[in-house]
């Protein structure tokens, strides 16, 4: 083609303005957002409890042990584990809880959440003495077999305390600091990675 003459001035290609690439940039942004969104685990629901005081409760200890009141969170760092003998993930993570229980200055609180499920109760009251008795026997046998990880071993028969913690599946693990404030939640079985990368550094930072 010949060089631009005055006759073709109106048809001159302007140099491409920079904003032509703005949609491309937006599109790439979107791709990044969707890629991140698709790779997230929908089971990991952020807990509104983080940074809030632990829910107030008092539960009886298993086998006639003293009643535990949530005021007793104050003054020491606690690891609260919600579990049940019917939960497979709980068995899987138990060795890690055993290891944690050997750490000094840590209060290990196990809350046995709905040991008797509705299907087993068959309409009976969860708090009925025979239900509690059966749950106690199962709780003790299980801990005998897999290790006494919990200095404080509590029965939450009707699941009300679990509900206040916002439990939606077992196991779940919480860290409560010396002021009684929830600092961490992990839903699902603990793994060595979670322990090494999240839980232990947090526990170290909470110790005086």
């Amino acid at each position, binding site marked *: 083609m010949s060089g631009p003459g005055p*006759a*073709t*001035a*109106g*048809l001159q*290609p*302007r140099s*491409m303005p920079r*904003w*032509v690439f*703005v*949609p491309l940039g*937006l*599109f790439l942004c*979107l791709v990044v*957002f*969707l890629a991140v*969104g698709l790779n997230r685990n*929908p*089971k990991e*629901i*952020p*807990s*509104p*409890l983080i940074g809030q005081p632990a829910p107030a409760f008092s539960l009886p200890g298993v086998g006639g042990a003293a009643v535990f009141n949530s005021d007793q969170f104050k003054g020491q760092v606690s690891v609260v584990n919600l579990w049940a003998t*019917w*939960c*497979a*993930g*709980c068995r899987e993570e138990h060795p890690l809880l055993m290891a944690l229980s050997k750490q000094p200055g840590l209060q290990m609180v196990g809350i046995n959440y*709905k040991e008797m*499920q*509705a*299907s087993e109760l068959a*309409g009976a009251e969860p708090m009925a003495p025979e239900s509690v008795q059966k749950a106690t026997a199962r709780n003790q046998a299980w801990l005998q077999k897999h290790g006494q990880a919990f200095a404080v071993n509590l029965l939450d028969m009707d*699941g009300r305390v679990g*509900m*206040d*913690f*916002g*439990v*939606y*599946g*077992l*196991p779940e693990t919480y860290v409560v600091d010396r002021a009684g404030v929830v600092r961490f939640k992990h839903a*699902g*079985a603990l793994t060595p990675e979670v322990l090494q990368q999240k839980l232990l550094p947090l526990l170290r930072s909470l110790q005086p």
Partner: protein
Amino acid sequence: MKRFPRLGWLWACLLWALMSGSVWGQGAASVPLSTPVSNPAPDLPQVEARVSARTETPLSPQAQARWDHIAAELRCLVCQNESLASSNAELAVDLRREVRGLIDQGKSDTEIRSFLVSRYGDFVLYKPEVKPVTWLLWFGPFALLLLALGVAFRLMRRRPAAPTLTDSERARIRQLLEP
């Protein structure tokens, strides 16, 4: 040379695709109404299909109306694609009992909702509240739509007008076309 005006339409189409994609994408990322539940986690309380039928007593018509209104907007946390009203997961049964209790106590819808949100977060609501944290979710798609329309309009307006030719130019063209 003449490619550029058409490029405008191309970008407009791409923007439209982007926009509709983002509206969908936002919905899917934040409110997964249809996220497929892959491999059910083994550590969740077992789903008991007949539990609800056995233990849940019917409500009074008035309470039932309120229940229908509230529960359909609440998500079951175990089976995330089900509403609290329809799920048979054990946790859903417990939460239903709790919400019924709150209805009986005469609590308002807002109080019932905040009971659940304080425990499970905004995640239990299919329609999260409009507040600074959720602004992007609620208004993001519309902001993007406006942006896209703005860009599209600019592109279309900038289409170069047909060139006006002088008489001598016309004569030259005629000369070129008619040998």
